[in-house]
């Protein structure tokens, strides 16, 4: 113990002269810029997908309805309510948030003597609502994938000269990877017209349990082969993943399931229908709506006969959609399963000609009208009457049927920007390629590229295949040479499509006029139903709504024995028709059960 040792410790007394290092006002001290403090939620961006709730290991988050937030497609109307008696501020909810709406402020003081007060819905009126600082996840989501597994496709060069299917389907690895991205929020289910249990069958893909997946598919949709390929997949627009990345490829995953279950196994998995009830139903039209209703009714033990005017069943699925999008054998497999349920399909049987409406009414407990939209609409522009101008649906039907008289000129112009326009454009392009070795096709649409009605892939693939896609062109006249031969289409640039009231009233810039060369002009601007089969008496009796048969929400027409479904009464797409078919079948079953159908 030297003197030095004794004295050394005292040297630290020098610190008594230093000013205290205490924080003068700790109550208003800001936490750091990225502090994980109390939650914020952008109510408008939030879609109420509940992924935050799913990842919270504390069970701190409840999804609750909030005033002012409506339930609509792609938004459940629910918002997270956080229990600060549970939260641990790990910010996993922020990291996983599908829209990036959930963030954290750097606020951290919450003192209350009421223990029940610590629950709140961020985004309503918390004091730190407008604080900028706080935790935000760095550079995009890290916890679930943002990019879609690419779909294998034939290259443009490989596909342009044939009608082979473009998409090759996912491999198992790709499918698992894609299914893995799904967060199982279920927002898509409401958007899907048939309300397919999408998250569940995606989970089945993830688990590699295709049998379960197929059973789930058939619960809501007997056209999985078809929908797995050409569904308009509105579900993918309300996919939670779409907000910060690619939507889950729901359609491709559906197709992947059916790709992995052989046909025989499907019938086995679905099981036999219920025992026969002795009831019978006639369905007019073997399109998606009619066949779905047929499938449902057959499963319930009803004897179903489907009358189809064309030589093969499938309706627009067969005669409207080109083979490169939906190969016929895929469609045949779906129909085979339906037939295996005991459905009789009478093809080439035209109602009104081969069999009368009244007979059907007499011999069946109910009749479902599912005739679809078979007739194309015309543009009624000068020169559109006469040879050299065709309607898309007619052409497509003829191409499918293998009609050798289908005109294939070296150059052609398509009017329209919907899926049908692209179908005919790309079909025609293939035919041109086969015939002339090159594509000479122009597609003109009223809409600009960003607002095309067709799927985005159609545009991309159309471009790839050499179709000249011109947007914002309004057709004015089909040009004909003196001999009456079509030479092209004259168009003006479109300045707006709708007027101030939102009515269809295209306005043009007349100075921007173009003439598109083409020996054939194809109109693809819409379809309508051919209701002539009803006969005058029935047509007179039925109530109509702007050219369509009027139905209630349960698919009943004004006649108690007649039900209607499909494109003819609703919009044109397969999945809506399927949904209608289900609904019609259900209504028919109820009606039969209640004895409502009076013969």
């Amino acid at each position, binding site marked *: 113990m030297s003197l030095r040792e004794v004295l050394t410790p005292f040297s630290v007394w020098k610190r008594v002269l230093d000013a205290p290092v205490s924080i003068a006002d700790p109550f208003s001290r800001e936490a750091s810029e990225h502090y994980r403090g109390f939650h914020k939620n952008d109510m408008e961006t939030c879609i109420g997908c509940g992924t935050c709730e799913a990842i919270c290991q504390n069970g701190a988050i409840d999804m609750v309805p909030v005033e002012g937030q409506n339930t609509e497609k792609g938004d459940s109307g629910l918002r997270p309510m956080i229990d600060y008696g549970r939260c641990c*501020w790990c910010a996993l909810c922020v990291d996983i948030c599908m829209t990036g709406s959930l963030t954290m402020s750097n606020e951290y*003081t919450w003192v209350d*003597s009421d223990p029940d007060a610590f629950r709140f819905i961020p985004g309503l009126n918390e004091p730190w609502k407008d604080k900028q600082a706080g935790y935000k996840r760095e550079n995009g989501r890290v916890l679930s994938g943002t990019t879609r597994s690419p779909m294998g496709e034939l290259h443009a060069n490989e596909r342009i000269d044939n009608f082979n299917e473009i998409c090759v389907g996912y491999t198992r690895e790709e499918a698992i990877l894609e299914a893995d991205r799904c967060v199982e929020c279920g927002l898509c289910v409401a958007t899907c017209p048939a309300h397919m249990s999408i998250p569940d069958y995606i989970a089945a893909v993830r688990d590699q349990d295709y049998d379960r997946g197929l059973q789930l598919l058939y619960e809501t949709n007997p056209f999985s082969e078809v929908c797995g390929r050409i569904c308009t997949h509105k579900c993918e627009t309300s996919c939670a993943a779409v907000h910060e990345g690619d939507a889950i490829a729901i359609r491709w995953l559906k197709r992947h399931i059916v790709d992995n279950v052989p046909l025989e196994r499907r019938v086995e998995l679905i099981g036999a229908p219920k025992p026969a009830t002795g009831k019978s139903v006639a369905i007019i039209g073997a399109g998606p709506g009619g066949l779905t209703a047929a499938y449902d009714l057959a499963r319930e033990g009803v004897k179903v006969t489907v009358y189809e005017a064309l030589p093969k069943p499938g309706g627009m699925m067969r005669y409207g959609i080109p083979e490169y999008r939906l190969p016929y054998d895929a469609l045949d497999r779906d129909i085979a399963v339906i037939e295996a349920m005991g459905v009789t399909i009478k093809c080439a049987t035209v109602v009104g000609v081969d069999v009368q409406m009244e007979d059907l009414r007499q011999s069946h407990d109910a009749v479902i009208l599912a005739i679809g939209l078979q007739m194309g609409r015309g543009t009624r522009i000068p020169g559109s009457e006469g040879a050299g101008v065709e309607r898309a649906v007619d052409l497509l039907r003829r191409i499918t049927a293998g009609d050798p008289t289908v005109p294939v000129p070296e150059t052609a112009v398509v009017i329209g920007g919907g899926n049908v326009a692209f179908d005919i454009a790309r079909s025609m392009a293939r035919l041109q390629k086969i015939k002339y070795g090159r594509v000479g096709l122009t597609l003109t649409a009223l809409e600009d590229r960003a607002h095309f009605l067709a799927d985005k892939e159609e545009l991309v693939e159309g471009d790839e295949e050499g179709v000249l896609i011109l947007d914002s062109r309004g057709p004015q006249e089909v040009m004909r040479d003196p001999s009456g031969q079509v030479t092209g289409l004259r168009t003006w640039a479109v300045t707006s499509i709708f007027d101030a009231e939102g009515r269809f009233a295209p306005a043009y810039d007349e100075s921007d006029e173009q003439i598109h060369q083409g020996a054939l002009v194809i109109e693809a601007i819409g379809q309508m139903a051919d209701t002539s089969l009803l006969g005058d008496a029935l047509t007179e009796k039925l109530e109509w709504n702007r050219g369509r048969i009027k139905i209630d929400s349960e698919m009943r027409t004004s006649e108690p024995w007649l039900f209607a479904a499909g494109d003819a009464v609703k919009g044109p797409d397969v999945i809506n028709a399927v949904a209608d078919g289900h609904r019609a079948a259900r209504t028919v079953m109820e009606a039969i059960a209640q004895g409502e159908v009076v013969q």
Partner: protein
Amino acid sequence: MKDIDETFRKIDATVPLREELRPRTVTTPDGQEITIEPLKDYFCEAAPKVHPKAYFQIVENFYNWARSNSLWILGFGTGCGAIEMRPLMTPRFDAYRYGVQWRPTPRQANLLIISGYLSVKTLKRAIRAYEQMQGPKYVIGLGSCTINGGMYWDSYNTIKRLDDYLPVDLYIAGCMPRPEALLHGFIELKKLIRAGKAEGTNRYAENFASYKAAQKSVIKDWDMPDYNW
């Protein structure tokens, strides 16, 4: 909350009791033979008295002012929150300047901070410590786990609602709450005390039976050395 399973296994009563939890006969120092049931006998059931306020409101107000400015915290770190107490006792936050001090014995403390989750074993000690403190005494629940279980909501060994077992005056949300939040809590507590609203001591005495019932429902073994806190 998707997780909650309504069809869980009921607690299995057939698991044999541990030796020391079984009833047994012991001989007391004065030669008496008594039967002890450890699961029942070791808790104190003498209800504390309800102490009235001072007769004159002005005196009570003065007392409350003094109480609010002299918060003596029991230095008992029951959970993780204890780690944020040290910054409070030290230069950075220096709670001493707000009249907050730490005492090592419950007898002298008047503020019990439950710093986070309470395991059943600690709950027993916390109750003992609380009962040893002299009124008026206050309890602050620090951290989310005192409010509704926090991240240990599904643990078999931690309680979820502190207010079932002790009268809590104030909760501070956070996991864990920052020292600043804790300081803020002190300020709020001072306001409560000054307003005469921090009467947890009497609340505990008045509802002693229900507090004890809740405590007994989770603490099975009450055996504890006499002087252990």
